[in-house]
């Protein structure tokens, strides 16, 4: 409770009205612009001019100057006064009669126009006639249960409508055609145009005086049971929750967003926005409370006072100062319609921000975040609360007047570490959220640097994510901070992001070597290798290549072998340089050559021979070694074989020289094969290795992509090796038989039969023979078919030729070439089978351009 929404200021003191005549009481008041009218119980009307004065301290006072007073000439009190400024008339209700008097001199109109028989009356503030020089007056008549509507002009009155109500009305308010009536037992809404009425709610007018007050377009405020101020629209529904007054309310007035009510001892102020009571002003013996064009006037029997509203901004600031955020925001939102749009937006944003800081100080982070967001807070306001977070170069100055009362976080948390950590966590998540939104525009550096500092301090894993993605961290500030918190790996990333790869590498190498300590990455060495692999600065790669290879040559060689493709295309790194650099690191060297030969497929004899020689060397070394590195040897052997088979570039004789005298028979066989010395190769395979399967495979892969004859020659050679009369190894004979039977198609049967020993039975070779015979017959028949088809085709051509030669073709000047549309100048021409005649050169062009089948044209020349 207790907002200071209004201030009570005296307007007319009792001396000015009645002096010491105690029997005189104020009956009614009316205020219109600066004119204040007071009606008394002794039938006088007083007219004052009301002047508002604002002192230098902002204090508002009113000075009332009496203009004149007039006695109406009855013994009755003046019960009601209403001004109609458009007509310069004052409507005076006295002795059940409404008279029209001039607003300025209080003289009755000469025509003597009046409304008789009125108990009470009210003006329609939402008139239906549309005539600006007419006011609509609604009276409760002295006739029972009767309401009358009048049109009042400058000097005449006219009755418009008389309505009979179901019960005796005791109070009325009007809006358009709608009457809101307090009847004896209930409130109703009555449309006097259509006669349709709508019950609102029951109310006992005997117990308490009803209040019916129009508070805006189509809405009324009513005194309800239990001291409720009920809102009701002309549709008979309530759109606002009721306010809770005391039981004995005398009057109510509206001054948005407040409902002011008067009872015997207090003036109470409720907000229409949240229905809460906001202010209570002690005020005894009050009996009139009315609002006139936004001015709330309250009166006792003897004096008149004005309730001066305090500026909304001041009220809101007071609420914020007492940390009543919700109420302040409700009030600010409610004030929207009373303040120009631009001004409101600026004010409202500021209030949101202030409210955000209040919630923030109470560690209500969710609420604070929402307020900061909707208030479009300059994030630096928040960052600046945290010591040392803003970069030293930041030009930020806190807004003035300040949005909050805190110097920094230490003051806000009063040194409570736990709170401090919570605040920092909040800032982290908040900055992370806003850094990519438009809120960050213009001070991304400040935000990212602050975020980096927070992450580094809290040892937060997102530090690295921040540094490897797009960021605006300021180098000097961030570097110093990272160093302070020993985040060397991150510092390296920062250097890298700022294009200082050399500095980054230096740091990382130091970490790997253990010169400085940072356990961020356990695989930092691999990281550095990877980094160098993709590093475009080759000087740096060369600089750290030694270090990398020394650590682990097999992993380290990646800096040469896995370089990005686009760089390979430009071929910036000379392979010879790399190889000479790798001379000390044999494993790395092999890997690099493999990369050159197998991956990049560089067709240079040098590398192929070198790689083969290196394989060979390694194999021989392993073989001579005492330890049994079987797996490794086999792997190398397979690699060597594959290279020897697939590559045609290496120097065969050079390798052959090296291999001679070793037990690498398979490899020698491959080399002989490369030299086309198949007999030697097969000899080795059959006699040295006794690997018949390998021999067969040798024949197959050596004849790959060659013609059938070549393959047959190879197989035949193998057969000859098997059947070498010098050896009579049974196994070889068996191999020969198998070879023949399994690969019947690879042999020329006639030649085989010459070679096969006579002693072999037909049985033994039956699969081969059957295959060979079938093959032979198949070939014969296929040839016959082909021959027949060719003869048939030939016949067709012959027939066509004869047909075309049958009729003469006439060529004249009138005939034009179908292609170029020019006449023929020489006797040679081309005639298409469809009869078209063209130049020979046109036909030639056309043949080039389109794929007309050649046989469809025939050329002939005739004179």
């Amino acid at each position: 409770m207790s907002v200071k929404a209004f201030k009570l200021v005296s307007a007319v003191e009792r001396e000015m009205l009645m002096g010491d005549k105690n029997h005189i009481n104020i009956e009614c008041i009316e205020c219109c612009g600066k004119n204040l009218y007071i009606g008394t119980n002794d039938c006088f009307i007083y007219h004052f001019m009301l002047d508002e004065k604002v002192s230098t301290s902002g204090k508002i006072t009113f000075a009332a100057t009496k203009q004149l007073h007039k006695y109406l000439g009855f013994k009755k009190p003046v019960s009601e006064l209403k001004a109609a400024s458009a007509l310069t008339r004052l409507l005076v209700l006295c002795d059940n009669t409404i008279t029209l008097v001039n607003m300025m001199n209080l003289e009755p109109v000469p025509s003597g126009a009046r409304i008789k028989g009125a108990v009470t009356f009210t003006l329609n503030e939402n008139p239906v006639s549309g005539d600006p020089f007419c006011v609509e007056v609604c009276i409760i008549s002295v006739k029972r249960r009767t309401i009358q509507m009048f049109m009042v002009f400058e000097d005449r009155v006219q009755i418009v409508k008389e309505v009979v109500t179901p019960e005796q009305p005791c109070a009325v308010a009007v809006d358009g055609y709608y009457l809101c009536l307090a009847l004896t037992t209930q409130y109703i809404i009555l449309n006097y145009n259509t006669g349709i009425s709508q019950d609102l709610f029951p109310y006992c007018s005997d117990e308490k005086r009803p209040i019916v007050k129009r508070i805006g377009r189509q809405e009324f405020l009513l005194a309800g049971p239990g001291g409720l101020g009920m809102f009701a629209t002309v549709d008979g529904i309530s759109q606002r929750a009721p306010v809770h007054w005391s039981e004995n309310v005398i009057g109510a007035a509206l001054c948005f967003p407040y409902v002011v009510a008067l009872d015997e001892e207090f003036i109470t102020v409720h907000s229409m926005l949240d229905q809460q009571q906001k202010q209570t002003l002690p005020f005894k013996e009050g009996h009139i409370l009315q609002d006139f064009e936004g001015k709330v006037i309250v009166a006792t029997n003897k004096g008149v006072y004005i309730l001066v509203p305090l500026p909304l901004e001041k009220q809101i600031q007071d609420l914020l100062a007492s940390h009543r955020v919700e109420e302040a925001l409700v009030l600010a939102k409610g004030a929207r319609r009373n303040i120009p749009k631009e001004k409101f937006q600026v004010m409202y944003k500021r209030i949101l921000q202030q409210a955000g800081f209040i919630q923030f100080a109470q560690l209500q982070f969710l609420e604070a975040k929402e307020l900061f967001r909707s208030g479009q807070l300059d994030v630096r306001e928040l960052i600046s609360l945290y010591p040392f977070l803003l970069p030293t170069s930041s030009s930020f100055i806190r807004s003035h007047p300040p949005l909050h009362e805190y110097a920094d976080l230490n003051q806000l948390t009063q040194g409570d570490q736990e709170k401090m950590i919570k605040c920092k966590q909040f800032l982290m998540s908040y900055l992370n959220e806003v850094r990519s939104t438009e809120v960050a525009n213009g001070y991304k550096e400040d935000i990212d640097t602050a975020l980096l500092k927070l992450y580094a301090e809290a040892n937060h894993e997102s530090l690295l994510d921040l540094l490897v993605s797009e960021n605006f961290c300021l180098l000097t500030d961030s570097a110093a901070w990272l160093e302070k918190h020993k985040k060397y790996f991150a510092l390296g990333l920062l250097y890298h992001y700022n294009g200082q790869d050399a500095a980054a590498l230096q740091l990382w190498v130091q970490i790997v070597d253990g010169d400085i300590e940072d356990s961020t990455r356990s695989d930092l060495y691999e990281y550095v290798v990877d980094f160098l692999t993709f590093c475009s600065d080759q000087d740096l790669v060369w600089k750290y290549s030694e270090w990398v290879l020394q650590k682990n040559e097999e992993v380290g060689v990646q800096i040469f072998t896995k370089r990005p493709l686009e760089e390979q295309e430009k071929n910036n790194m000379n392979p010879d340089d790399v190889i000479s650099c790798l001379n000390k690191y044999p494993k790395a060297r092999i890997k690099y050559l493999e990369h050159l030969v197998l991956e990049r497929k560089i067709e240079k004899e040098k590398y192929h021979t070198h790689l083969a020689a290196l394989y060979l060397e390694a194999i021989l070394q392993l073989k001579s070694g005492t330890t049994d590195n079987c797996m490794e040897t086999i792997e190398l052997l397979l690699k060597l074989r594959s290279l020897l088979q697939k590559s045609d570039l290496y120097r065969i004789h050079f390798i052959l020289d090296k291999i001679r005298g070793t037990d690498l028979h398979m490899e020698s066989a491959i080399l002989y094969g490369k030299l086309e010395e198949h007999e030697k190769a097969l000899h080795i395979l059959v006699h040295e290795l006794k690997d018949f399967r390998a021999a067969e495979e040798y024949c197959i892969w050596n004849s790959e992509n060659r013609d059938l004859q070549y393959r047959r020659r190879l197989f035949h050679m193998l057969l000859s090796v098997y059947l070498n009369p010098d050896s009579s190894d049974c196994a070889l004979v068996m191999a020969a038989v198998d070879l023949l039977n399994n690969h019947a198609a690879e042999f020329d049967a006639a030649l085989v039969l010459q070679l096969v020993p006579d002693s072999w039975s037909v049985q033994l070779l039956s699969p081969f023979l059957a295959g060979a015979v079938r093959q032979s017959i198949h070939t014969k028949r296929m040839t016959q078919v082909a021959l027949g088809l060719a003869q048939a085709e030939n016949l067709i051509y012959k027939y066509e030729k004869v047909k075309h030669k049958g009729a003469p073709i006439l060529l004249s000047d009138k005939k034009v070439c179908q292609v170029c549309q020019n006449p023929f100048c020489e006797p040679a021409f081309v005639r298409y089978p469809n009869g078209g005649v063209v130049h020979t050169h046109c036909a030639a062009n056309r043949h080039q351009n389109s794929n007309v089948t050649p046989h469809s044209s025939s050329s002939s020349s005739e004179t």
Partner: protein
Amino acid sequence: MKKPDGKVVLLGDMNVGKTSLLHRYMERRFQDTVSTVGGAFYLKQWGPYNISIWDTAGREQFHGLGSMYCRGAAAVILTYDVNSLQSLVELEDKFLALTDSASADCIFAIVGNKVDLSDDCASPPDENRPEKAVAGCSSKVRKQVRVEDAIALYKKILKYKMLDEKDVPAAEKMCFETSAKTGYKVDYLFETVFDMVVPIIVRQKAEGPPQTVDITDYKPAKRTKSGCCA
């Protein structure tokens, strides 16, 4: 202030927990409330619509206001206390008549609140610790109102409104038992009601005459010659 598209009204005897139910739903909390004076309302955004939810005062003094609150309502949530048979009886005796002013296609929900206080609530006491459960039972009271009673009331309401059971949601669907204290089925209650209110809003928008005055309709009256400066 946004103009609400539809209205839901909570009715029921005093002290059955209307304010607590609404508070639990809107603020996600349970706290001791004081007796509601007059009424209070909340705005709830439900899809594209704003639904106003009116919390009424249960005290007899304010019953007269109920009819105004119910005017044009799309849904009425009649609330009783499962531990007080009287509170269910009151719904029929005193509150049903107040709903006469509600929209013709208004839907009704009957809600028994405070199930956390009775022993046979839907979430049985911890079976693993029998001795504790017995001790717990002693503090709990026997539930006085069964769901069947609420369903019977629902059917009576339909008769009173002269509605056919086939045209309205089934009784079993519209009788709820909740606990504002534990939050038991509170969201379910309001969300079920809101989902049913939306088609009513759509229908009202489609056919209902505009409830606001169209100011563009205004035809300026002819100026009279009697004007002073004419």
